[in-house]
């Protein structure tokens, strides 16, 4: 269980001025700006949860994750993973034995050596017993499909291969908690799918707690039941994913293309003027709140009144919902 209690993190950055004159002035000045990266946030994550931690760049997500991993020490407040502080040098070793971390932007593999060497050394570092290691190794080889390049040096791998290898490396010691910092950044659709499926599988099979930070809303919808939204160091939302959709209404969009034209005024009147219309190339987009109006009725109306050539129904994407939350800074 991860408990984050009233965490604040303040960074001091030297005040820097422009140009050569400014550079010389900065040389002799001692002024610092205090930047509050994380401002008194708290939350608790229970074993087996998959939590999405989202926010714009500079919002404080990476800082929080780094504090949870033990890389940074909070300026005030406390983080406990199974009752121990990860950043405390006395308990760090015990905590890190049970966590795995994947940084999307940086690899933890030994760069010039074959993958298998990294894995072997990790086995020794985490003191994983042979039988357990063999089992897990085979499992990850399959689930992440890394068998083909086990003997290649990490520097020769493509981004997708490297991410899968990093993921395997972080999980070989059966950590209770997995931290993923932008794990799918820069990856193509197929590889992303593989990785997301693997994570879900691992969570189901080993009950690993997973915390994911990402910009990719698709990752979030695929993986997380709960999300925490952070902005400028403060938590804007912490709760189930579907509640967000519900709070913002269950907006649906129907795209239809037809050779005929519908009378939109009558259409709207039939549904209490609660529809909105938009044109997008060849499509007419009809938007409405499915919590208020019946999808069945609307679809029936459309098919009765129009010869439909193409039809699509979508829901409001999380992206725009989240954007709205940022904009309003509250729910």
């Amino acid at each position, binding site marked *: 269980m991860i408990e984050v209690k009233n965490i604040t993190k303040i960074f001091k950055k030297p005040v*820097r001025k422009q140009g*050569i004159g400014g*550079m010389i002035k*900065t*040389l*002799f000045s001692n002024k610092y700006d205090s930047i509050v990266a994380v401002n008194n946030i708290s939350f608790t994550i229970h074993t087996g949860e998959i939590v999405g931690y989202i926010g714009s760049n500079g919002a404080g997500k990476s800082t929080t994750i780094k504090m949870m991993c033990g890389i940074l020490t909070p300026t005030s407040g406390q983080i406990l993973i199974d009752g121990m502080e990860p950043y405390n040098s006395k308990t760090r070793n015990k905590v890190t034995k049970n966590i795995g971390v994947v940084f999307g932007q940086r690899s933890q593999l030994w760069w010039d050596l074959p993958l298998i060497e990294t894995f072997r050394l990790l086995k020794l570092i985490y003191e994983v017993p042979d039988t357990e290691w063999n089992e897990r190794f085979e499992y990850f080889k399959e689930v992440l499909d890394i068998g083909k390049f086990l003997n290649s040096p990490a520097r020769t791998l493509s981004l997708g291969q490297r991410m899968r290898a990093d993921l395997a490396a972080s999980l070989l010691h059966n950590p209770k908690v997995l931290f993923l910092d932008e794990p799918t950044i820069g990856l193509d659709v197929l590889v992303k799918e593989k990785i997301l499926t693997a994570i879900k599988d691992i969570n189901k099979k080993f009950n690993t707690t997973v915390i994911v930070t990402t910009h990719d809303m698709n990752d979030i919808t695929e993986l997380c039941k709960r999300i925490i939204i952070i902005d400028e160091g403060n938590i804007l939302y912490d709760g189930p994913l579907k509640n967000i959709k519900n709070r913002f209404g269950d907006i649906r969009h129907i795209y239809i293309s037809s050779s005929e034209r519908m009378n939109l005024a009558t259409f709207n009147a039939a549904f209490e003027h609660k529809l909105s219309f938009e044109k997008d190339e060849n499509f007419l987009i009809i938007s409405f709140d499915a919590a208020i109006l019946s999808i069945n009725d609307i679809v029936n109306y459309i098919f009765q009144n129009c010869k439909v050539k193409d039809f699509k129904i979508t829901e409001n994407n999380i992206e725009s919902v989240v954007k709205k939350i940022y904009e309003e800074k509250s729910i």
Partner: protein
Amino acid sequence: MKVLLKRYMKRNPFKKYFAFVKGGILQAFSYKFSIFGWIIGDFIQIIILCFLWIAIYQYSPTTEINGFTMPMMLTYLVSARIVSQLVFSGDSFWQIGEDIRYGYIANNLIRPIDYRKRLMTMDIGNFFGIMIIAFIPIYIVSITVLHFAIGAMFPTWYNIIFFFISSLASLLIISSFNFMIGQLAFFTGALFGIGMIKNELLMFLSGGYLPIAFFPEKLQAILNILPFTSVLQTPNFILMGNYGITETIIRILIQFGWALVFSVLASLTFKGTIKHVTSVGG
């Protein structure tokens, strides 16, 4: 006057490179501790070196060793150190390494002349940058201290002007030299090791650690024929005022001669390297 200056600046190709250099300096010096550490480090080294030589002269039966009195020796060593930092500032060397490593040269096969021009202007920009920010202040402080401590002589106006020209010539020689050696990056990744070897040998053989006069006779003869002496000892002696005007001019001309020679060598070797690399498909 201002108008003329502005027009000159507009046409000055160095301006945009100076912008690069400015950026480079700003970046390197963005940690004030870095700069202070560097400057203080330099001073400490110089001070201890002076003490060493003061002691050596104390134990010498003669006041002159190999033609140098103690004040001359200290002045020589201190300015050799400072001048070497100005002239040997081989950033272009590392740049070539980077460019080769990341395939910039191989992939683009840009015209050798343009590429070299770019590197040389980078070096020249660097030269001016270091001159203003580090060389002038450190030298002024050092020579002032030496003057009051042991009676070292201040350089005269024409010493300074000729020194400026001479060190520029040295820079050109070194720039081409760096370019030649830098091409080894095509064949190995160990540029750091090669850089160290180059720098150490250069410092040693050009009189950076010890005046050439201390070397065995035969070696001195060889070194005087090779460009090594021109690169550091010449500008240093000019600054110290050891040469008369005629000799100064002759030596500067020799320097520019070497600069030309090395420039040609650099272009030739580059052509050869490119041919080799493209044929092998590196």
